[in-house]
C-alpha cells in the first residue's frame, strides 16, 4: 500500500483523509450508506443531538437561493436516548470516526448530552453546536456572546471523555473574538455554520415558515474562507475543521491554504449524494498530479512568503 498523501491526526481523530460530511447534511449516515461505503469518509459529523426528541420547524423548511440554499429544519432529531441506542449502533459497524454534534436549551442540557454521548465507544469527538440560527433556544444565543460560549465550552470539557470541538457562527461581530474565547477550553474549532438569510416568494412573503433560515452552499464560500483565514491568523495552533460551500477539490485546497486542517462538505451532499467519495478520490489525483507529497504541505500557505 502506498503512503497516504492526505491522512491527518487531530485531537481524538485519526483521519485517513481530511473530508467528512458536515452536521445536518448527512442525517446519521444510514441514507447515504445506500449510495456508498461510509468507510471511505475521513469522519462523519452526525446531525445535532438534543436531550429530548425535537420535531423541528413547520414547513416549508428549505428554499433555494443563487448557488445556495436556506434551511430552517429546527434541529429535528429523535433525542439522546434513541440516538445512543439506534443511530450510533448503526454507525458502529464502520471504522470511520464519528463526531457527535451536541445542542441544547440550557448549559445543563449540553452538559448532559455531551456527557452521555462522549461515553459511546463510537463517538471520537464532540462538536458543540452553538451556532444554529433556526431555533429559539439552544443554538445561537450560546454562540454570539463570547463569555457564554467560553463558559459552555468549559462546562462541557469538564464532563466529556472525548475531545471537544466548538462550531462557530458567522453571525457575529467578531468571529476571532469568539474563537479566542472558546479556544481557552476547546480542543478544536469547526467553522462556519450558516448565515442568517431570508427569501421572499412572488407575493412578497418569506418562503420559509420560520421566516429566516441558514444560508449555505457555494454562495457562502468566500465568507467562510475569510473567516478561517482570520481565525487561523489569530490562533496559529488550534485545530480547525472548515466548512462553507465546498463543492470541488479546488475549494478544499483553498480552505487548507488559509490554514484549515480538515474540511467538511455540507449542502453539496444534497445536490450530489456521491460528492464526498468523489472529492476524496479527486483530491488524491490532484495531489499526485501537482507533485504534492502530502496535503499538509499546503496548509496555511497563504501566510507564507
Amino acid at each position, binding site marked *: 500500500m502506498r503512503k497516504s498523501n492526505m491522512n491527518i491526526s487531530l485531537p481524538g481523530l485519526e483521519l485517513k483523509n481530511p473530508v467528512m460530511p458536515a452536521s445536518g*447534511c*448527512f*442525517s446519521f449516515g444510514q*441514507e*447515504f450508506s*445506500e*449510495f456508498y461505503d461510509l468507510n471511505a469518509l475521513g469522519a462523519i459529523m452526525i446531525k445535532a443531538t438534543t436531550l429530548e426528541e425535537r*420535531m*423541528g420547524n413547520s*414547513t*416549508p*423548511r*428549505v*428554499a*433555494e437561493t*443563487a*448557488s*445556495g*440554499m436556506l*434551511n430552517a*429544519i429546527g434541529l*429535528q432529531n429523535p433525542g439522546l436516548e434513541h440516538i445512543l441506542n439506534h443511530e450510533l449502533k448503526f454507525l458502529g459497524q464502520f471504522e470511520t470516526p464519528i463526531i457527535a454534534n451536541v445542542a441544547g436549551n440550557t448549559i445543563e442540557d449540553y452538559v448532559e448530552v455531551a456527557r452521555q454521548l462522549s461515553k459511546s465507544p463510537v463517538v471520537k469527538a464532540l462538536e458543540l453546536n452553538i451556532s444554529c440560527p433556526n431555533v429559539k433556544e439552544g443554538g445561537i444565543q450560546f454562540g454570539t456572546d463570547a463569555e457564554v460560549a467560553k463558559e459552555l465550552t468549559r462546562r462541557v470539557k469538564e464532563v466529556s471523555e472525548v475531545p471537544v470541538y466548538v462550531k462557530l457562527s458567522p453571525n457575529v461581530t467578531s468571529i476571532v473574538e469568539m474563537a479566542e474565547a472558546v479556544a481557552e477550553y476547546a480542543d478544536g474549532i469547526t467553522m462556519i455554520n450558516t448565515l442568517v438569510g431570508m427569501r421572499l416568494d412572488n407575493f412578497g412573503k418569506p*418562503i420559509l415558515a420560520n421566516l429566516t433560515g441558514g444560508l449555505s*452552499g*457555494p454562495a457562502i464560500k468566500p465568507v467562510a474562507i475569510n473567516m478561517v483565514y482570520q481565525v487561523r491568523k489569530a490562533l496559529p495552533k488550534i485545530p480547525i475543521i472548515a466548512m462553507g460551500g465546498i*463543492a470541488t477539490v479546488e475549494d478544499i485546497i483553498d480552505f487548507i491554504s488559509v490554514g484549515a486542517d480538515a474540511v467538511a462538505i455540507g*449542502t*453539496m*451532499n*444534497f*445536490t*450530489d*449524494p*456521491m460528492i464526498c467519495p468523489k472529492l476524496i478520490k479527486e483530491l488524491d489525483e490532484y495531489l499526485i498530479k501537482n507533485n504534492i507529497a502530502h496535503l499538509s504541505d499546503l496548509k496555511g500557505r497563504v501566510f507564507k512568503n
Partner: protein
Amino acid sequence: MNYILEVLSQEMIADNIYKMSIKDSDDNFIKKELKSPGQFVHVRVGDTTEHVLRRPISISEIDKDHRFFTIVYRAEGAGTKVMAKLKAGDYIDCLVPLGNGYTVEALEHVLIVGGGIGVPPLLELVKQFNAAGVKTTHVIGFRSKKDVFYEKEFNTYGKTYVVTEDGSYGHKGFVTHVLEALDMNEYDKFYACGPKVMLSVLDSTLPMPGYISLEERMGCGFGACYACVCQKSDGSQVKLCTDGPVFEKGEILL
C-alpha cells in the same frame, strides 16, 4: 439510483407545461428498481452549483418495453426553466426511483382525481389499472383552457371529466363540482394528486377509501435532510420523500 440519463424528447404540451421523455439506464433501472406509479425522480438542474437543490418530479409514464419514462412539469421557477431547454440527446442527472407510489389493487371501478400539475402521475396509474382489468373514471381540473393537458390520454382509458376554474374549457369550477354529480357508490376507492387544498377536501368528504399524493419543498429526496416532513393524524411525523409521497386517506393532517 443516481443515473446520468439521456433525454429522448421534450415538448411543451400546455402553457408552460413540459413533457420530457428520458431513456432507461444501461443497467435497466426501470425493470430492476421502479416499483409503482406515483414514484418520483429528483432532477439535478444543470451541472454547475448555481442550483444546489434538485427538483422532485413525479413519473407520468413508464414504458418498460421501449425502456423510457416520462415526466411532466411546469416551468415556473429558475430551475425548471433551465430544464425546459433540454433537448433530445442532452443528459440529465437523476436520482430515481424515489418514494412510494400507489398500489394497483384488484378492484372493480376506481375514481381518479387530479388537479393541475398533480395530474401527470395519475396517467401511469390509470394505465396500470386498465391493464389489470380495473375500470377507471377520471376527473381532472385545470385553471384555464390553456393549461389543459392529457385529456386525450385519459380518454382512451375511461370516462374523463375535464374541469377549468374559469369555465373556458369543459366543466366550470373545481373538480369537487363534478364529483358532487357522480354516484360515489360506484367506486371502490379513489386516487388523487393535486393542490393541497383539493386533497384536503377529497380527504375529508369522499366516502370511500382512497390514496392521495402530496408535495413539499425537498432538500435531498432520500430522507437525510428532514425538509419535507408532514404530520400524521396520530401526532407522529413522516418524511414525504421516503414514507410518501402517496398516503392513505386520513393518514396525514392536511
